[in-house]
């Protein structure tokens, strides 16, 4: 059974069709990519899955339950974590505190136990810190950076902190929105390794939106192509590369560079 299943999802804003009957699935423990020209509706699809947008029709079934009526925080609690296209770390807070935010939905201590510093509260704080530290080590952020203001880190490191923060929610599925954007060649290679380790060592399925088609073809088991809100192709990287509709969609757009990479 698929971990995530979208059925005939349609989204529109004021008469503008953004997504049209999108059907799509992610198998457990797999890496799946979503590609398509700019403005195809990829990020909108992410926002529908994570509860930020409310689609008019269709369903989003994750791990056997319907996500469509849930608020974003409830979707995260259900096991879907995400990163943002533009890095959105909490500014003026340390790297470690940023990642600690991920544990919020897995913990429960409130105001009274915090004021009284109850033993259970102190244990929970220690656990939150431990999980955050483990996630930071996993993505390869050394602990001399943990207490720095997150917004002062090098860009590539901020991206990794954002992934660590998402992993700290203990997800079953991780959505990455253009994780390679702005990274150097070397950092992209590290990202490929990291995504594989997320899948293999943490058994977290990964769904990514990415413009770097080379990177997509390297790590994905399945690739889906979205164009003008319509899913035009789905298959293995090899099938996608030789699909004439995909090439046409890319050639017809400003993304000719991506078409050449195909």
């Amino acid at each position, binding site marked *: 059974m698929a971990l995530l299943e979208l059925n005939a999802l349609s989204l529109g804003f004021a008469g503008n069709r953004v997504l049209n009957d999108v059907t799509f699935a992610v198998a457990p423990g797999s890496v799946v990519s979503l590609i398509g020209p700019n403005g195809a509706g990829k990020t909108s699809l992410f926002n529908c899955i994570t509860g*930020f947008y409310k689609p008019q029709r269709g369903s989003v079934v994750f791990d056997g339950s319907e996500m469509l009526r849930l608020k974003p925080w409830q979707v995260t609690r259900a096991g879907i974590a995400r990163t943002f296209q533009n890095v959105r*770390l909490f500014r003026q807070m340390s790297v470690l*505190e940023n990642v600690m935010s991920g544990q*919020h939905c897995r913990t429960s201590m409130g105001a009274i136990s*915090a004021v009284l510093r109850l033993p259970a509260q102190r244990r929970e704080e220690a656990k939150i*810190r*431990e999980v955050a530290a483990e996630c930071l080590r996993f993505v390869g952020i050394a602990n001399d950076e943990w207490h720095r203001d997150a917004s002062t880190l090098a860009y590539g490191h901020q991206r990794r902190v954002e992934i660590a923060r998402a992993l700290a929610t203990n997800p079953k599925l991780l959505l990455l929105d253009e994780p390679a954007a702005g990274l150097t060649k070397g950092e992209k290679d590290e990202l490929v390794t990291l995504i594989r380790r997320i899948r293999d060592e943490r058994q977290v399925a990964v769904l990514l939106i990415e413009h770097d088609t080379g990177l997509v073809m390297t790590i994905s088991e399945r690739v889906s192509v979205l164009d003008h809100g319509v899913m035009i192709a789905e298959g293995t990287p090899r099938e996608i590369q030789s699909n004439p509709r995909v090439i046409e969609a890319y050639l017809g757009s400003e993304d000719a560079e991506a078409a050449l990479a195909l």
Partner: protein
Amino acid sequence: MALEPGSPGPQAVEARPSAWGGLTVLLDTPAKRVVAIVAILLVMAVAPQIFGAYITVILTNALLYAILALGLNIVVGYAGLLDLGYAAFFAVGAYSVGILTTEFGWNFWATLPVAVVAAAVAGVVIGGPTLRLRSDYLAIVTLGFGEIVRITARNLQITGAASGISGIDQPWLYGWHIVSQSDFYYVFLALAVVAVLVSVRLANSRLGRAWLYVRHDEDAAEAMGIDRVRVKLAAYVIGAIYGSIGGAFFAVNLTAISPQSFSFQQSTLFLMAVILGGMGKIPGVILGAFVVVLGPEFLRDLGSFRYLVFAVGLLLIMLFRPGGIWPAGGRR
């Protein structure tokens, strides 16, 4: 908590909230901070003996403002919610005590839980629907709420209408009748210490961090699984409880309350203390409260010009230190 090498120490995280603001540079070790706190408390403890009755009254008022500003700081400074009607919660506390002690003959201490529950309920009723909305709707709703509470108090029989409630009994505490100005000074000093302690502990907790996450980026916070409405409501209700407790002790200190003590101007003064001192910075907020109360007193010789001079001074402070008087610091 066992700390393995390389794991983050608690002090490292506690250094962040800039609860200490720029003082982290000066007071870089916990020992120095303890010395500073003890020194301040000692000075505060002997202040009534040194300065005499008049200054003691003013300092008591400054401590009351500090307590209220600390409460409002949780709402405005931590959770980033603009509350323009904070005096309403102050009124809820004061009138709960006033009505229950004079009309129903309750003991002051028995009325405190009622005042706290009443403020919390009011906080949920006002915050529940409005905190779902984004941006500054809350400012408008709280502004309206503040006026509604004041006008209701002015017009109800039970609240004594425009003349308010007088003859509120001063409380006893284990055989100590709290009556004199210095008695109340020490009560408010103790309350302020508790208010600081609660604020510090909340700032360094799961809930305190969640307030900052939500303030910095609501969407990212929600994507991390944080229910923003619930978190904001917690801040709003905790702020309301601070206000209510302040109001309760205010009522027994003055023994008389009237609607004009809970005006919009009062709300703006509390807010001014928070913004002036530096939102989110505990020592800054306390300093802001003292400036707001002591400033006009120091300028008393100027007669009716003093508010003008004080206002210009405030404007200059905000022009040159928009982040508040207290140094930001702490950020490497």
